[in-house]
């Protein structure tokens, strides 16, 4: 629009036959307005969409969270912070929070370490390097549901492949769903399988930006491959590590499909096992929002509390990761 307007104003004098342009005060004001307002207009679509589909739902959720808001009834009584106090005194909420953090730690820490090592290996001269690099991304392309369904079968108690291997090695069968630790481990494996390659590629991209001569100098000084990784690569790609840690944290705290499908189609899929041994925060939200009662008010309070938890954990992780440079 502004391009068109501008060419309008510049072309017009030529058409009228030279001389200083007779720019009237009205036209001048319009021109200035165009300069000032147009940029905002260009970015407006994003903000309009964000307001409609991001900001409004956020604010509305906050509003709903202060009501006794069941989807099935037409009356929504205002209850203030009652949903939040009920939430904070519910032991099942703290249980879900503990499970979420435990699954997060079990999946993210090994996953990022493995990604770092894989990326380091991929920087070396390998036969079929492109093949390996592309292969890294394959698990990430697979749908979460497909991954969860297949892994749930692998972790099956009676006919699962993993138990079959364990048994043929002489170790006993494990009822993966039943125990707290075993179920967390199984879910963490699903997450790690999907995201390790993705993070490895991000690390790889960052590693390629590290100047070669630093490694050459280190090599001349007799530093081993591992020392080069720890002393040069990791500090040099620190911003990327911070990024992956934050993103993995946000994803890990919202994990839903994996535990839900791991629990099966019955009530155990909603409560994360009969003892709620692998119910995550999102499952807890789902239980209240889309199960008995359809308590949207309470579920909205869970959503906002989750938001606070995610910000807090991401911040803690950021502060922790920042120490990388000072440590090395």
């Amino acid at each position, binding site marked *: *629009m502004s391009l*068109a*307007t501008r060419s*309008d104003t510049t072309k017009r004098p030529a058409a009228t036959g030279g001389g200083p342009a007779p720019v009237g005060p009205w036209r001048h004001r319009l021109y200035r307005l165009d300069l000032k307002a147009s940029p905002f207009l260009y970015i407006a679509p994003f903000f309009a969409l964000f307001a409609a589909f991001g900001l409004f739902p956020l604010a509305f959720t906050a509003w709903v969270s202060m009501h006794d808001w069941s*989807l*099935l009834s037409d009356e929504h009584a205002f209850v203030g912070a009652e949903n939040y106090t009920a939430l904070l005194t519910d032991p099942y909420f703290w249980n879900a929070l503990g499970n979420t953090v435990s699954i997060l730690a079990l999946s993210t820490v090994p996953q990022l370490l493995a990604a770092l090592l894989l990326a380091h290996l991929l920087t070396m001269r390998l036969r079929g390097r492109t093949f390996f690099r592309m292969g890294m991304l394959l698990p990430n392309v697979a749908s979460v549901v497909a991954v969860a369904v297949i892994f*749930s*079968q692998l972790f*099956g*108690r*009676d*006919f699962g492949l993993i138990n079959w291997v364990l048994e043929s090695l002489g170790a006993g069968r494990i*009822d993966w769903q*039943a125990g707290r630790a075993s179920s967390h481990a199984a879910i963490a494996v699903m997450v790690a399988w999907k995201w390790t390659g993705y993070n490895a590629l991000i690390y790889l991209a960052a590693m390629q930006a590290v100047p070669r001569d630093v490694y050459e100098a280190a090599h001349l000084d007799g530093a081993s491959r591992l020392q080069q990784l720890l002393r040069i690569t990791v500090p040099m790609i620190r911003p990327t590590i911070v990024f992956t840690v934050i993103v993995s944290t946000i994803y890990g705290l919202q994990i839903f499909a994996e535990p839900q499908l791991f629990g*099966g*189609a*019955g*009530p*155990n*899929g*909603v*409560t994360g096992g*009969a*003892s709620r*041994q692998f119910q995550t925060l999102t499952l807890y939200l789902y239980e209240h929002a*889309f*199960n*008995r*009662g*359809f308590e949207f008010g309470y579920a909205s309070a869970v959503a906002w509390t989750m938001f606070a938890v995610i910000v807090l954990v991401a911040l803690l992780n950021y502060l922790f990761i920042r120490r990388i440079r000072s440590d090395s």
Partner: protein
Amino acid sequence: MRSKPFRAALAAGTAAVLALTGAACSSDADDGTVTLTVGLFGDFGFGPLYEEYMEAHPDIKIEERISEFADHHTNLTTHLATGSGAADIEAVEVGYISQYTASPDRFHNLLDLGADELEGQWLDWKWQQALSSDGEALIGLGTDVGGMAMCYRRDLFEAAGLPVERDEVSALWADSWADYVAVGHQYMDATDGSYFFESSGNMFRAQVEQAEQGVYDRENNIVVESNPAVGDAWDLTVEAIEAGMSNRLEAWTPEWNAGFSEGTFATIICPAWMTSYIETNAPDAAGLWDVAAVPGGAGNMGGSHLVLPAQGEHPEEAYELIEWLTAPEQQLKVFEQTGNFPSTPELYDDPALTGLTKPYFNDAPVGGIFTAAAEAVEPQYQGPLQGDVLATLGQGLGRIEDGSQSPDEAWSQVLSDLESF
């Protein structure tokens, strides 16, 4: 300004896109045909019936949408609450029907559409289940009922030295569930590495469904703690769990499916709809399964209604279709195809129904067995959160099974969980 026509074109384009998407949402074609959507959980065996109906009614098109059992009811509730998204015709399982009869204004009242003349067609309790509490509105017409029987593995019974013929097996536990558990003890003593039943939750649920009063009283209070029938069922189930009879298989999981063909458990409670499930899931086990009577007399487990959400725009056409689908002739066809047992007593002396045998179940006379079961059912009052209350109890038993809690701990957690309902 030259930008004006551009802006106008943009506006026109946007309007056109909106109009197009709007048109795409509308279900009716210009040629006057009406498209009816039918939302089901699982296959109801309606496929051939749709064909037949569409042939007789060229102006009707039928589209079926099938989803998972739990998702289906969650989605239906969401669609009802938000006023859009529901199919013209939706199936509702009996565990959820009372939740919906509590808000009859979200459905077309079938009594106004012609159902008032059909009352005698269904089992009385099946009819009652879909009535609103004031009796003014009927939200659904019954499809099948889940009269209970007991499916058992002949080969496993033989290996355990128990009788194999279905009449003798029925006689083993003819009196009570306590006899069934006693047979379970014998079975466990005589065998190694297999289980007597697939999951304790089902056995518990069957006992509760048979009782005069279930988990709710008629004032919609949850009476799990005070109803002795529930407590007795719990104690007997705990006894069976502690004797190691349960294979601890959660329904609808891959392990559960595999159990049918691998023969890891010897008995499973079989409402009529379960027989077709076993047949499709364990085709290799033909002849190994048989059907006997369920302990404790009759009882109902499962069964569905077809309802018309009020947001549907074609109530007359939709009603005509469900009236036809749930009519005795069509219910009989569904039974012959899938095993879902009719809810219309008119058929119960029809030899086509009572004489039906299933080769897969060793030629068991399933028609006769399920007719007897359905006729003997004493209707039990179902409360609004029936399904959820039973699920909470089932999870309590699950915690005993996996060893994470003692029976007392599990029971008290069940009671405290129920307090938040």
